[in-house]
């Protein structure tokens, strides 16, 4: 039965992968598919003596580093392709089977991790652990006796997950084959340092800040030769192997617990019994634990946890082992609390893969850094199937990836996401971070902890919510995707967020349905800052966009920012350099296709169609409202075409 299921799943995976080829995506229509939008954009450009062919960037304004993603290179040359990219992501999701959406789609998107200067041997067509013999495998041979009294579905699940972890570890190890032990150790110890911020920075002297910056720069430069030798594709393959193992064992377990069969505990320790544990087994990959139907309590850093139900409490910590290691948690029900004792927990892949599947219940995740679908030199995947959940994390969390992939997929319920930094669909160098929320009225918050000491006394950096980031000028960035399919959602960030990016990266926030509210301060809501791409696309609903500046369709410094709202009666409120603004040779477009909208600004000399000069030529800012009765303060007016004194700024309201 399980074997047949495996074959069907494997075939569906293969079909899925083949139908989503990279080349196909790039050969799709290069410009906005909506002809009216395309036509209006063309007219707007004509008003400033330009053509759509002028909306191009180069990919070599600076020396191309080894970590530039081919996808970003391609879209930079034709920034409007970003609309097709988004459309393809949504189409992939729409066409995928329910299983693929959870277990394979995030990994197919890893094909975008084709990195210019480093090896990426991601193979879409092969899964090494497809042919697990459930009767006779390494797990049954070595630990069969210890689990012989367990029911077959549980034994099979353990076999699957055990082999999945071994395969995943082996693939991850292979990804680092070209590096010495010392080099790997350097990456393990040093790379997180460049991602972690210090709340005490605001109290440091200029000399201390300068020394810190120099130290981190030196540290980063030292790592470049090592990073150039790893295989990012193979890292993600490791995660895909483990996701596949999880996928094939899950249906059997769900079937098994339907009748809640009595299970005799195999644990002898009194505390284990008190903690509602059924099995605790030491293995070569780490501890394996099965918890019962009651209130189970887990601690330490087990490799595998299967929880059969109940309102459980987790208090897990990072695996202290220095070798490659992976982990899986499958919680089959209950309102659970996941508490972190350290960084790198709950769907966290760090030199390995980490997967957490929570099948049902209103869960609370209270975590630290590198958690909740975080892949740093690894793959992290968190799938929460149902319930109104609360996610809390600090830095690099909730769908964050660098040299790997991090994904958080929440399939139902009204959820609350709260993080400090680099979170909620965040892509750093060589990585892709994805947060997908399928339904419910959700709330996303990012910021509030690390002050933006460079710019402000009283604002915090967010760099989250469909945000991607590179290290200027030495490392191009990754891809950050936040996709919310339905519900009335609230997005709150401060500095950098909401479909934006910095330095040769791509950040996208897509919201399909619902009356949504977007609040941010700066560099947000479809903003690109310094040779990069950012897009916020909202398909339906009456939405409200509130920001202060460099936002709502703003491109700064040879970058592209797009805010595209497809329908609904929307309101756009900002202070300056927003609503179709280009600065320092960037392109910024705000396009609203339908509805009766309101556009409100604090300053009219750099908003609603602003393109200021830099390097002796123009930036481009365009505001397009294709239909509806609209209200403006500022340059715009209903049923009017206008250009602004900035010369390369234009607006069309039809």
């Amino acid at each position: 039965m399980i074997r047949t299921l495996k074959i069907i799943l494997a075939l569906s995976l293969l079909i899925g992968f083949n139908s989503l080829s990279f080349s196909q995506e790039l050969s799709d229509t290069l410009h906005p598919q909506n002809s009216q939008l395309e036509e209006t954009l063309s007219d707007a450009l004509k008003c400033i003596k330009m053509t759509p062919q002028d909306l191009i960037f180069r990919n070599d304004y600076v020396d191309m580093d080894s970590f530039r993603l081919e996808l970003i290179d391609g879209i930079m040359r034709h920034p409007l392709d970003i609309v097709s990219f988004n459309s393809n992501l949504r189409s992939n999701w729409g066409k995928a089977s329910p299983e693929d959406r959870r277990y394979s789609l995030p990994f197919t998107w890893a094909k975008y991790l084709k990195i210019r200067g480093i090896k990426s041997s991601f193979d879409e067509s092969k899964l090494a652990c497809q042919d697990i013999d459930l009767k006779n495998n390494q797990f049954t041979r070595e630990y069969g006796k210890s689990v012989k009294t367990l029911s077959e579905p549980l034994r099979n699940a353990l076999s699957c997950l055990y082999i999945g972890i071994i395969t995943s570890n082996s693939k991850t190890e292979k990804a680092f084959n070209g590096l010495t032990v010392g080099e790997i150790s350097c990456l393990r110890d040093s790379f997180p340092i460049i991602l972690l911020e210090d709340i005490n920075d605001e109290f440091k002297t200029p000399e201390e800040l300068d020394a810190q910056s120099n130290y981190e720069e030196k540290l980063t430069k030292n790592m470049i030769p090592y990073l150039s030798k790893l295989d990012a594709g193979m890292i993600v393959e490791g995660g895909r192997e483990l996701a596949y193992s999880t996928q094939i064992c899950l249906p059997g377990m769900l079937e098994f617990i339907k009748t809640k069969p009595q299970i005799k505990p195999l644990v002898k320790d009194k505390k284990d019994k008190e903690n509602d544990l059924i099995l605790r087994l030491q293995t070569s990959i780490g501890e394996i634990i099965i918890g019962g139907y009651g209130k189970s309590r887990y601690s330490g850093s087990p490799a595998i946890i299967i929880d059969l139900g109940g309102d459980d409490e987790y208090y897990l910590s990072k695996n202290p082992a220095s070798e490659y290691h992976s982990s899986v948690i499958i919680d089959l029900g209950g309102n659970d609390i996941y508490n972190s004792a350290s960084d790198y927990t709950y769907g966290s892949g760090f030199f390995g893969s980490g997967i957490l599947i929570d099948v049902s219940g209103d869960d609370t995740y209270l975590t630290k850094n590198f958690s909740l679908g975080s892949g740093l030199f690894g793959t992290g995947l968190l799938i929460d199937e149902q319930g109104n959940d609360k996610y809390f994390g600090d830095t690099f969390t909730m769908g964050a990836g660098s040299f790997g992939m991090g994904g958080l997929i929440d399939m139902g319920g009204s959820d609350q996401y709260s993080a400090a930094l680099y979170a909620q669909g965040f892509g750093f160098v060589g990585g892709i971070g994805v947060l997908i929320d399928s339904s419910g009225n959700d709330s996303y918050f990012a910021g509030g902890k690390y002050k933006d000491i460079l710019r402000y006394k009283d604002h915090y950096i967010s760099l989250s919510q469909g945000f991607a980031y590179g290290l200027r000028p030495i490392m191009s960035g990754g891809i950050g995707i936040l996709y919310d399919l339905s519900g009335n959602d609230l997005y709150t960030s401060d500095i950098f967020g909401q479909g934006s990016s910095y330095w040769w990266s791509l950040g996208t926030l897509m919201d399909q349905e619902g009356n949504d509210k977007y609040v941010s301060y700066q560099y947000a809501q479809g903003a690109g800052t310094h040779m990069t791409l950012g897009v916020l696309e909202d398909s339906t609903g009456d939405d409200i966009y509130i920001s202060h500046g460099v936002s709502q369709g703003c491109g700064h410094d040879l970058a592209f920012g797009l805010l595209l709202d497809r329908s609904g009666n929307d309101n756009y409120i900002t202070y300056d350099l927003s609503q179709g603004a280009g600065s320092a040779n960037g392109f910024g477009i705000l396009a609203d296709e339908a509805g009766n909208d309101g556009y409100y600004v604090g300053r009219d000399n750099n908003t609603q169609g602003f393109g200021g000069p830099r390097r002796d030529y123009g930036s481009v800012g365009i505001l397009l409202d294709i239909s509806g009765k609209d209200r403006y303060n500022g340059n715009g007016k209903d049923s009017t075409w206008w250009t602004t004194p900035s010369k390369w700024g234009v607006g069309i309201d039809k």
Partner: protein
Amino acid sequence: MRKFVLLIILITLQVFIRSGYCQNMAGRDEIKEKVDSLYIISNGVSEKYRDQAQPAESTLVAMGEEAVPYLMDKLTTQDAREKWTLIRILGKIGKPAVAPLIGRLESPNKDEAEISVRILGDIKDTSAVRPLIGLLTKDNYNLRSNVCESLGKIGDKSAFEDLSARMQDSIEAVRKSASVALGRIKDDRAIPYLVKGLSDSHYSVRMTSANSLVELGEPSVKPMFLLLTSSPGEPLYLAIEVLGRLKSKSAVIPLINQLKDEDWATRAFTVEALKEIGDPRGIRAIAELKKRETHPFVLSKIDKAK
């Protein structure tokens, strides 16, 4: 005894020399320390210390020649903020920085060479012209572009031939900087190159060529008349713009004819140009157009106050 006296004299001499040397060294260390400290503050690494940045920068400028050698050591920076700080400070220090900067032009470090070129342009010292021209054939297109920009800022006509040749460069950023420079050095021989620039495949070259034609003034008018006969498109639109910005009375009648064009953009830009010129004939023609015009962009140009 004589030997002993000689030895004492020698030792004393050495002590004097050494102490002088040490003082000199100590002095140099002191200056370096001061420059380094001021430089860190002037970079404005934190909002908290932002108010100290400008005074620190002014102090470095005031130090002048004394600070130059230590600032030169920082030209290899890759940090954009630091680059701007150096451009401002060394640009203001001026002449004392020229020779050391020329010495960095052939640096194997791209950042150092590129920023040196930029600062020399800001200083506007003609002694840099020949060394800069020597870089126009380098592979690094950012360097070539910066050189064009700096030659334009210096404004020495001896660079004309080399700059006009760069209007054929394969990289648009270089062509753009060359067209800007040709406008700045104000040499009428540039007009054919700039007219061609109005049809460039990159909008930056088209825009800057139009600006430079305006910079060159009246001699640009006649070539624009020829472009008025071309079909609607960017070169025509820019020619109309140039004529307007030059306030050419001789262009009024040809422009009035353009108001009959079927292309709405041609009519709109012509309205803008005629308003710019301000000739009563043009204003009357715009009033006539308003009676029959329906396109919203043309109407917005008609209704817009000049």
